[in-house]
């Protein structure tokens, strides 16, 4: 029998999977640019960044697998769970769009991820704290790189500005989910393992607003829709878009077709 690791599971494991799924899904989306970047140098830059995210996901999956037991490995967690088992943010599974949307999403998530990892350095789960400490220099660079591009494109030509405005309009409805704690997040916060994402919101808003001002992009960050009242989707509860189903179908096809295959 294939271990599926379906919920209900311990809040700590669900939290680790949430963090890992975020990194894996965004890393996979960005990796779709490999060989298709607008410039050779940017193609390499985004592929490097994707591999950083994949590396973070692996460490988190390995840590989760150790806790879950029952034959779970990083591979079964990544390749044998269905979309409804995934706990990633909807924001990260949306199609890559154009270069502007990919960059803007990366920037918005990097600002969040940096604050999150910084807080997780103090986790009572020492392995999670170590993973966070290792990820911080990577995410710091992702943030810097993506921020430069957001400003460059937002404050660039008429076309690049229009495209960034349109990307912002596409992503804005999905920003509220970043800061709406799921039940498992409340539980791990009480136990000192995780952090309540709503506590990161004011600092995130401050930083993002500064960047968007520099990029000449206007957006309302004061009233963000929560997942349930706006879209009916909630990534942390496994209620995903069809885009994730298609992403996983492509990503998992080899392991599902040839279970246990190695090369």
């Amino acid at each position, binding site marked *: 029998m294939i271990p599926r690791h379906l919920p209900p599971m311990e809040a700590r494991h669900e939290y680790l999977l949430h963090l890992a799924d975020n990194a894996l899904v965004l890393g996979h989306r960005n990796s779709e640019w490999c060989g298709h970047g607008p*410039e*050779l*140098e*940017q193609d*390499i*830059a985004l592929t*490097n960044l994707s591999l950083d995210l994949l590396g973070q996901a692996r460490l988190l999956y390995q840590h989760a697998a150790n806790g879950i037991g029952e034959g779970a490995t990083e591979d079964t967690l990544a390749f044998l769970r269905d979309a409804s088992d995934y706990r990633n943010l909807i924001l990260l599974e949306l199609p890559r769009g154009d270069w502007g949307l990919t960059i803007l999403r990366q920037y918005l998530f990097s600002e969040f991820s940096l604050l999150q990892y910084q807080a997780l350095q103090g986790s009572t789960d020492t392995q999670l704290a170590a993973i966070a400490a290792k990820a911080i220099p990577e995410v710091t*660079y992702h943030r*810097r*790189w993506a921020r*430069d591009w957001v400003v*460059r494109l937002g404050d660039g030509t008429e076309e690049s500005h229009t495209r960034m405005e349109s990307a912002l309009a596409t992503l804005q409805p999905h920003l509220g989910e970043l800061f709406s704690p799921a039940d498992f997040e409340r539980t791990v916060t009480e136990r000192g393992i995780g952090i309540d994402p709503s506590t990161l919101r004011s600092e995130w808003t401050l930083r993002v607003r500064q960047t968007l001002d520099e990029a000449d992009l206007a957006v309302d960050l004061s009233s963000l829709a929560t997942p349930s009242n706006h879209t009916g989707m909630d990534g942390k509860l496994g209620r995903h878009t069809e885009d994730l189903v298609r992403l996983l179908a492509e990503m998992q096809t080899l392991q599902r077709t040839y279970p246990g295959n190695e090369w």
Partner: protein
Amino acid sequence: MAFQIRRLLYGDIPGGETGGGPANPQPAPDSSEWPLWEVFIRSRQGLDHKHVGSLHAADARMAVENARDVYTRRMEGVSIWVVESRHIHASQPEEAGPFYDPAADKAYRHPTFYDLPKEIDHM
């Protein structure tokens, strides 16, 4: 008129963050193509920056980031210089004779008559 005098130490880039040319570079002849930059990497503290290749970038900051992503992925460096290729002036191949041949038969210019202690590296 105010002149700013800055003491440059070994390894400093003249012009600080705007390294890679004058403060107001002329626009590239074809603005659809980013200018070419030469990349120099210092692999360890104490060693010289070495030319490793070139890349395209719209400005100096992007050039440094591109160099980081293209040339330091495997821990090759601890410091990066970039300079726009158009600022490099080279000797001409047709002048190679008068430039380099006269050095060929002057063995006395080589410090081969000294014994260096083994501990001295990178000479």
